[in-house]
């Protein structure tokens, strides 16, 4: 099964992900080892990283460099929620209507409000690493689910993320089939590396073939295949 990664910081020189071009390429090599066929690069967009032109420039140079490799890359952004409030233009995933949004993991932030207002404006929000928001309750997931889709990190599925509670929440989300995507959230090749294949195998074993294919490939195809959705 060829996988699609929807959350990755492999683009060099724009955020806390890859620093240099070489690191970028080694991260992409690691992604190929993980059976990843299509990769959506999602650099941060927050207070510290507001670059727009450099991102597109670096993306184009990277695309030129890896055109021989068996992987396709697309450009997306991981938006911090306060950047979405009063701006008409959003930096979406592969120029579709899907927006990857991240929230504050410690102070409880208005996830439902932000997702609702995005939906009303015609966008389709994806809540990034939903297992990190420990302040959400079971009924909150149901309410937010009306307006948004959920992405879970591969490290949380494997239980190797920094918080133990992430693992427990991701287990709950997968057991009840609330999650819609699994992304690697890889920042480098050693400490926060790409573990997508391991996570795929574990989900396949524990929650079934059909759900694993949905999480890792079929659902994400709508972002990569038709850029007008």
């Amino acid at each position, binding site marked *: 099964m060829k996988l699609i990664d929807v959350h990755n910081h492999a683009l060099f020189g724009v955020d806390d992900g890859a620093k240099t071009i070489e690191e970028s390429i080694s991260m992409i090599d690691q992604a190929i080892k993980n059976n990843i066929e299509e990769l959506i690069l999602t650099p941060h967009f927050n207070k510290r990283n507001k670059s727009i032109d450099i991102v597109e420039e670096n993306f184009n140079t990277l695309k030129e460099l890896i055109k021989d490799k068996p992987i396709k890359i697309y450009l997306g952004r991981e938006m911090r929620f306060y950047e979405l409030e*009063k701006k008409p233009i959003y930096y979406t995933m592969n120029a579709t209507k899907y927006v990857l949004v991240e929230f504050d993991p410690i102070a409880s932030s208005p996830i439902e*409000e932000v997702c*609702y*207002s995005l939906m*009303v*404006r015609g966008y389709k929000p994806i809540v990034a690493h939903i297992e990190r928001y420990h302040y959400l309750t*079971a*009924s909150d997931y*149901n*309410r937010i*689910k*009306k307006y948004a889709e959920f992405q879970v990190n591969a490290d949380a599925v494997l239980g190797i993320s920094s918080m133990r509670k992430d693992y427990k929440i991701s287990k709950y989300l997968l057991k*009840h*089939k*609330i*999650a*819609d995507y699994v992304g690697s959230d890889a920042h480098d090749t050693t400490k926060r590396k790409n573990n997508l294949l391991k996570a795929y195998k574990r989900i396949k074993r524990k929650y079934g073939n059909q*759900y694993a294919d*949905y999480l890792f490939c079929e*659902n994400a195809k709508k972002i990569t295949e038709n850029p007008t959705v």
Partner: protein
Amino acid sequence: MALRPNKAKKANYNYIEAKENPNSYTTESIQKMVLNLEYANVDKSYKVIQVTSTLSGEGKTTLVGNLSYLLSQKYKVLVVDMDLRKPKIHRLANDTNQDGLTDYLLDVIPFEQLIRNYNNGLDYIVAGQKTSSVNNVLRSKKLEDLINQLKERYDYIILDTPPVQVNADALIISKLADGIVYVVGYNIVKKAMIHECIESLKRQNITMLGIAFTQVKLPKRRGLYHYYYDEAN
């Protein structure tokens, strides 16, 4: 594909029962409430009506939506979202919470942009961007002038306000309102707490128009009589 562990209990705000099901039991009881309001309001002295409750989640916004929809069939009605901390009126109309009351009071937008139309005869004002000084905004002279200005245009102005027990907002707003409709959710709050909140409202010299009892679980109807009414619907 994705299943839900337990069905979401909270309904969508944009579902207005009086609009979707004009003959249902719920709509009939809200219609009764409209009649009672008209009887109380023979002299047209109660124009600004505040809707509040003891705690959150008792059904204020849902009642405001249904009540204003039924009132708008006869009168010109305006709904104002005064709950500046957790605004919800924009969800009734599937709208965004932009360019609202706080934006007007802080001189960001002019008066013409403030009011939006929902239906024939029904307009609404959303809360607008969040402020840290809710008390100052609610006590401002400009808000009082705005309400007085709107009184001349509309037959009814319905204010959706925060619950009484949680913060002082509802008590401050009650000075702007002519009468209060108090919402009591079935089996949610203790009786003593409701008495306490109503007492604190009465200390503000406010007229209580009545109490609306929401989220009532009806017992299963027995006997032969209900067939008649069921078939009529």
